[in-house]
């Protein structure tokens, strides 16, 4: 991680020789609705993930962050479809992979875990076999070796008495244990990237911290990059190196976690951080909220999707917000925002390909 930063920091000149682990450019995912309408759940998203990096993707419900995560793995099912964009993993184009290459790539190079761990495990099979399966199918280990591997993996993710627990069925596990098992399965083949789609949302608070800690430690140890999709800014602050904020299918701001949380440039990010309660805050002080709700993605106008709810637009009376889509603005190195108002606050130069 540190090495990556040092390579990437002085990239003002030519960022092209540095290849991130995953580079997403112009990704657009569309759903066809009844009556021929189209809904773009993900719109023209550019995002890089470096090797060993933990990237937090934040957004409220319906912002398209889960669809985006699934689009990366080409998991979007009809009526959804990735209609534009490129995904390059270590320089290989994911969009051009055949079904066979794709299933080899998933599991071996990338893993994914989901929000509801208990419903993500096959209810009729013992968890031992479910953990052993990637070892059996992809590593071609013998049944005995795969089974032993499953016990080791379960021990590594902190399942007590793994020799007995391999025989359990998913309904016999608690939510926290099920998520540990999912992490064991996803990391069984030491992938280079793990996508975690709200991994702790369904768990109770004490377990959440344990699972996050496990995710961070496992990824650090294996050198795995982590794309952590969440709506919880606290989770991001604890874990992430870099943060991307998603609103109405677009990444509206992206930057290192320290500057993003202390000096956010986009009015939406400012609103999110203002809305989060803080320890030591005086009692009785109302949390700030963002007026309105996320817009209907199938009825977006030409302008910025956040414009109707935006304080900055109202305050500065910017006309362009409702007329055209803002271009990415570089706030400081590695920090960019998609906003007309952000332009005013900082140095103005359209962002290059790399953050």
């Amino acid at each position, binding site marked *: 991680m540190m090495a990556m930063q040092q390579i990437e920091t002085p990239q003002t000149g030519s960022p092209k020789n540095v290849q991130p682990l995953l580079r997403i450019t112009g990704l657009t995912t569309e759903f066809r609705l009844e009556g021929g309408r189209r809904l773009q759940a993900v719109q023209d998203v550019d995002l890089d993930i470096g090797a060993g990096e933990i990237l937090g993707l934040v957004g409220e419900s319906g912002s398209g962050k889960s669809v985006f995560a699934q689009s990366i793995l080409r998991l979007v099912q009809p009526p959804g479809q990735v209609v534009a964009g490129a995904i390059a993993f270590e320089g290989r184009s994911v969009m051009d992979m055949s079904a066979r290459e794709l299933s080899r790539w998933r599991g071996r190079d990338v893993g994914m875990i989901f929000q*509801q761990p208990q*419903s993500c495990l096959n*209810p009729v099979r013992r968890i031992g076999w479910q953990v052993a399966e990637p070892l059996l199918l992809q590593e071609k280990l013998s049944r005995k070796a795969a089974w032993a591997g499953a016990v080791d993996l379960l021990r590594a993710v902190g399942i007590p008495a793994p020799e007995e627990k391999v025989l359990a069925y998913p309904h016999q596990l608690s939510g*926290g244990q099920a998520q540990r098992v999912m992490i064991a399965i996803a990391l069984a083949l030491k992938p280079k990237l793990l996508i975690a789609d709200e991994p702790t949302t369904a768990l109770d608070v004490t377990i959440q911290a*344990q699972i996050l800690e496990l995710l961070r430690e496992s990824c650090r140890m294996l050198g795995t990059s982590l794309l952590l999709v969440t709506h919880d800014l606290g989770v991001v602050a604890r874990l992430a190196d870099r943060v991307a904020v998603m609103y109405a299918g677009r990444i509206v701001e992206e930057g290192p976690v320290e500057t993003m949380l202390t000096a956010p440039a986009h009015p939406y990010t400012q609103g999110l951080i203002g809305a989060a309660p803080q320890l030591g805050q005086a009692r009785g002080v109302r949390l700030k909220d963002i007026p309105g709700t996320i817009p209907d993605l199938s009825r977006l106008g030409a302008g910025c999707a956040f414009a109707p709810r935006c304080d900055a637009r109202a305050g500065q009376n910017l006309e362009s917000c409702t007329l055209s889509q803002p271009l990415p603005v570089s706030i400081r190195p590695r920090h960019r925002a998609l906003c007309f108002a952000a332009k005013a606050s900082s140095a103005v130069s359209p962002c290059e390909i790399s953050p």
Partner: protein
Amino acid sequence: MSVILLDEPLVPTPPRWRRFVARLLRNPSVVVGGTILILLILLALFAPWVAPYDPFKVNPVQRLKPPSWLHLMGTDEVGRDLFSRLIFGSRYFLLICIVTASISASIGTLLGLIAGAGSVVTESIIMRLIDVMLAFPYILMVLVIVAILGPSLWTGMISIGIAGIPGYARLVRSAVLTVKREDYVVSARALGASEADILFRTILPNVLSPLIVYLAFSMPLAALVTSSLSFIGLGTQPPAPEWGAMLVNSRTYLFSAWWAVTGPGMALFISIFGLNILGNGLRDVLDPRSAA
């Protein structure tokens, strides 16, 4: 990885299969049907030791004798011991159940899996084919296939097996359509399972319980139709002691020797009844809504 934090303790539950067996034994239909099935299997396995006579041994002196201590269920028109023939008949009954069910269940399940999980094109091709098969009356389709293959026990079983395919295909397809939207299917795909892995390792085990129930219902029907085929002379050929064939041989003596018809009739009735109520019981026990 060094973070070992203990989760909340696991609530101890008795092993799943023990609770399942206990639920099975609490269901009277399962107990009665299961007992009949087990008796049938035992009779079929140990027929030569249980049967007092050779089922093919003709004894003209003893023809059409009513039930007595010598011949528990009497004898038929050529003096064969009916009791022994009924016992050996259980082998045919079970053979018919197993062969027809394996043909229709294996092919039907495969077609249903492919139709349910495949593309729209493969689904429409398979399901239209199934619709064509269903457009024929069941018995008519069986007769057509027997007419093509020629009458014998095996062609009868094959034709009934084929005629049973559509039911399995439709059942499995509908089950797959619900299961394939489940989180664990998406999750398996995200973790690198190929479409074949998903079909056979993830989806198939989850559609087994409706399949088992349907199996228990369709087996007795298949056995009944096979016996009907024998009855109209298109199935088992004499002198094989198949119950349907025995019925047809003895029906001319219905008024003079009632026992020659009653024996095989009762054997068929009891066996089919047993399998049917077993199916009923299994449906109740396996239905997730009834699970305690």
